[in-house]
């Protein structure tokens, strides 16, 4: 009966109910987008790292953390040195240069990348034809609206799009390594060296031997370690705290919206509250109705927020498919529901107590 009463009340004032649901839904969408964005970008990084085909990564001596982009400090002789080590099948140096956040352009030896990754899958065009050629994946091509043969501005200079490839192999944007080394005045040095071993089972053996021979100055780790550390690194960079702040804002907005909406509702329905009291409705019963109505708004807001997160993902992926990848964070649906319900319950407290404390005679006389 309470459910019906609450539902009919919400239905009776559709604009108020819809606005409340919308305003609760907005922070839900924000939280889901933020979580989805972090998950999507982590997944994209991990997929590209695995897609390179490498088993081991060696960073420059000035790279303090596993994921920071080191400047080019690894000498070219390291390639030959690594390839002479037991179980090493192939080594390849790369140079990284930040372009628009959060993207990097990677300078690569395309032949070696093809061997290491199993070959690029060209959707159109082909390999580099000249030093100023660039190969981009379909996401970056879509983002910059470029096709093969177009000129594209990167690092303050024009490049010719030589090929567009399927994504997921090392980087969204690659250029000839010699060109990027010249731009960065790297003198033939590399930012990182990727190593492929003859059998993935030998990865740890090779890492152990390299660490012994090279000392502690050069961070050496498996690609699996790197991909698993991406999540921890993202969290350590304050994303968790940022999400917590957004959740806090969501609770405050939800609280304020429900409080205002339910308080208006209580004022508008003073006589109805008087009727319920005249029938013997206790304070608990009246508070229960207001709480149930608020919780229903919370559920509606969560559902709408989830729906809007799908829309937001579509928009982000249409506008910035290479820079930002958004996953649908299904695991967070129960959490945002709980957040909305807590906010709604808190927001219904004052209106509920106000309604419960109405004098029944005054309430019945309310016009």
């Amino acid at each position: 009966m309470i459910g019906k009463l609450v539902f009919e009340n919400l239905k009776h004032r559709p604009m108020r109910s819809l606005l409340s649901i919308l305003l609760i839904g907005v922070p839900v969408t924000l939280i889901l987008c933020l979580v989805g964005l972090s998950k999507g970008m982590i997944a994209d990084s991990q997929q590209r790292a695995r897609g390179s085909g490498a088993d081991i990564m060696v960073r420059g001596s000035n790279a303090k953390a596993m994921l920071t982009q080191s400047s080019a400090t690894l000498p070219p002789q390291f390639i030959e040195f690594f390839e002479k080590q037991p179980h090493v099948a192939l080594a390849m140096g790369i140079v990284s240069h930040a372009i628009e956040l959060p993207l990097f352009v990677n300078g690569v030896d395309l032949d070696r990348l093809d061997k290491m990754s199993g070959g690029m899958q060209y959707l159109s065009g082909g390999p580099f034809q000249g030093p100023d050629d660039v190969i981009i994946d379909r996401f970056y091509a879509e983002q910059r609206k470029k096709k093969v043969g177009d000129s594209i501005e990167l690092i303050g200079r024009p490049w010719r799009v030589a090929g567009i490839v399927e994504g997921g192999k090392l980087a969204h944007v690659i250029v000839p390594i010699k060109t990027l080394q010249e731009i960065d005045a790297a003198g033939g040095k590399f930012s990182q060296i990727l190593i492929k071993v003859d059998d993935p089972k030998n990865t740890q053996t090779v890492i152990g031997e390299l660490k012994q021979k090279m000392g502690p100055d050069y961070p050496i780790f498996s690609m699996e370690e790197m991909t698993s550390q991406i999540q921890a690194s993202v969290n350590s960079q304050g994303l968790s705290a940022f999400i917590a702040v957004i959740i806090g804002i969501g609770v405050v907005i939800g609280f304020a919206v429900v409080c205002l909406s339910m308080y208006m509702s209580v004022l508008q329905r003073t006589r109805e509250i008087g009727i319920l009291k005249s029938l013997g409705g206790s304070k608990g019963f009246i508070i229960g109705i207001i709480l149930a109505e608020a919780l229903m708004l919370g559920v509606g807001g969560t559902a709408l927020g989830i729906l809007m997160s799908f829309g937001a993902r579509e928009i982000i992926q249409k506008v910035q498919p290479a820079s930002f990848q958004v996953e649908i964070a299904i695991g967070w649906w129960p959490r945002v529901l709980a957040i909305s319900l807590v906010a709604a319950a808190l927001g219904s407290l004052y209106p509920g107590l106000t309604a419960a404390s109405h004098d029944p005679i005054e309430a019945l006389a309310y016009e």
Partner: protein
Amino acid sequence: MNNGAPVIRIQGLRKTYRVGKVDVPALRGVDLDVPKGQFLSIVGPSGSGKSTLFHIIGGLTPPTSGDVQVGDLDLSKMSDGERTAMRKRTVGFVFQKFNLLPNLTARDNIAVARHIAGLPRETDAGFQQMLEALGIAGRLDHKPSELSGGEQQRVAIARAIVNHPAILLADEPTGNLDSENSKAVLEILRDINDRTGQTILMITHNPEAASYGHAVVTMRDGRIVSHVTA
């Protein structure tokens, strides 16, 4: 009419409202016994204390002093929560403005009273017959806005008696109705009283409406000035 023990016994009832810093006496010592099964009309000019008496008997407000007993319950000693609980099954209200919940159908308005009283939604065969007698059995799935004033008041009467209360309190039940519907509602109240022995207290300004009762109490300045049995 059953002339057994009084279902309502009031002795020395006083009620004073505080308006700002001024005490305003609404009831100045009311004594009244209402036998079980009586249909009592209460008349009097505005400000005579009729509504205050109605609100105290109905447990909507506590007395300032005096004794008020409804059935076995002593209202003068009850807390706010106890009076709220008392209203669930002991009293049924019919108001001048019908006071139906506008968002619910007639059926659900009646069901709300059952729900609050902790009773199952289903009603007994006797109540179904009463709905037929009230002429609203075919109108139960309509919301108040789709019902005429007379129909709304009949739904309100059905809601008031659905839990078989000890007393039915009707405050100007015909005040918002035309003469035809007024007559119909009054006849319904008398019919309910005749058929079920339901004790009814009805406040009215209308002498013709008052004549439907077994007895008429006249109030003035917070006191009962006459009590005439028909």
